[in-house]
């Protein structure tokens, strides 16, 4: 086959650039080489699925900073990639990176894919990144997961992001002052959404606390 050298060089350049693009430069020198290969493969797969890459890179860098083993880092990144995919599937393909990332945090806190899908339906015309993040924050201060889900859903149709954040801040303050998390949330939410059912008859076990 007779080919012009310029065509060969251009073809190889395109192929080489694609290969280089798949490498995450921030991981170079931070992760063991074999772990980096696995993480790059996960990133490549996530990229092809349209999932946000940033939280995956952050998770790998956290592991590196905490001097975790390569195997543990790969496991953590793979687990998070799975959660991002569940969140994206629940929130829809048009959801933003921030929404998918916050949705994955909510899943880790104990929410379900169905919970996120309901939140999406109730909040179709607004971002739910803050709502999902506050859900995770409420669980983090000790509110049972299903109670936090019920509260966030009760406010979803009308609450602004600032109201979600104010709710979270108030509950945190109440808990710091000695109130039980579920009582603090109930009082704060019922002031705005008296029709809410905030999990007083919870059947879901409380989310684990680190």
């Amino acid at each position, binding site marked *: *086959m*007779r*080919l*012009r*050298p310029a065509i*060969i*060089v251009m073809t*190889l*350049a395109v*192929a*080489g*650039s694609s*290969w*280089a693009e798949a490498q995450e*430069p*921030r991981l170079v020198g931070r992760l063991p080489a074999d772990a980096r290969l696995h993480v790059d493969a996960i990133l490549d797969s996530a990229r092809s699925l349209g999932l946000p890459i940033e*939280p995956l890179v*952050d*998770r790998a*860098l*956290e*592991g*590196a*900073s*905490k001097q*975790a083993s390569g195997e*543990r*880092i790969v*496991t*953590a990144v793979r*687990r*998070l990639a799975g959660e991002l995919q569940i969140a994206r599937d629940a929130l829809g393909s048009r959801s933003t990176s*921030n929404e998918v*990332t*916050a949705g994955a*945090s909510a899943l*880790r*806190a104990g929410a379900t894919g169905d919970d996120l899908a309901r939140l999406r339906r109730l909040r179709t015309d607004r971002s739910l*990144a*803050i709502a999902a*993040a*506050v859900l*995770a*924050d409420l*669980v*983090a*201060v000790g509110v049972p997961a299903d109670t936090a889900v019920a509260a966030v859903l009760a406010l979803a149709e009308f609450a602004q*992001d*600032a109201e979600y*954040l104010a709710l*979270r801040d108030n509950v*945190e303050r109440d808990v710091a002052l000695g109130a039980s998390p579920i009582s603090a949330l109930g009082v704060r939410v019922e002031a705005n959404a008296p029709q809410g059912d905030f999990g007083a008859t919870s059947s879901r076990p409380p*989310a*684990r*606390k*680190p």
Partner: protein
Amino acid sequence: MTERDMLLERVAEVLKEPVAIDPDLDRRIMNEVRAGPTVRAPIGPVAWLIRRRVVSVSPLGGLALAAGIAAVALLGRSVWQATAPSAAPPSATVAATAEPTPSLVQFVILAPTAGTVSLVGDFNDWDRSATPMRPARGDGIWSVTVPLEPGRYRYAFLVDGQTWVADPSAPSTFDDDFGPPNSVVTVGGS
């Protein structure tokens, strides 16, 4: 036969007659060609570059060449990013566009016996040395203020370069994949 038909027949007869060509035509054309500028075939490096040839590349050689080209492309991009001027100062960008406005967030921890404390998290690529904290008043309180765009960030304090400590004044996350717990801060939009 109409007058029109007669006209057409006369025209056809004229067109059927052979065209008389000036016997000197060939000579005059060749003289014009010889008088024009001479076009020469390329020689030297130009001819070498455009000449077709057979190139044999082994798979291994091709991969090595691709890796080299990729390295050059990456290096070039890094240099370009490092030297390219930013579009505008951050404050000007905020004023001119709808980009999210960073909020200044202060992080504080009480660590009376610590020699050094660093803030490490999603916002600084978990770089242990990127955000050192400073003793605020000399009574063991360390603090630092960082600009954060709207979002949810995980972080922890690193005391004396070896002990990870969650922020006692912030909720802890459930992302404990690596043992020591993290804290979380959620920054809202403007």
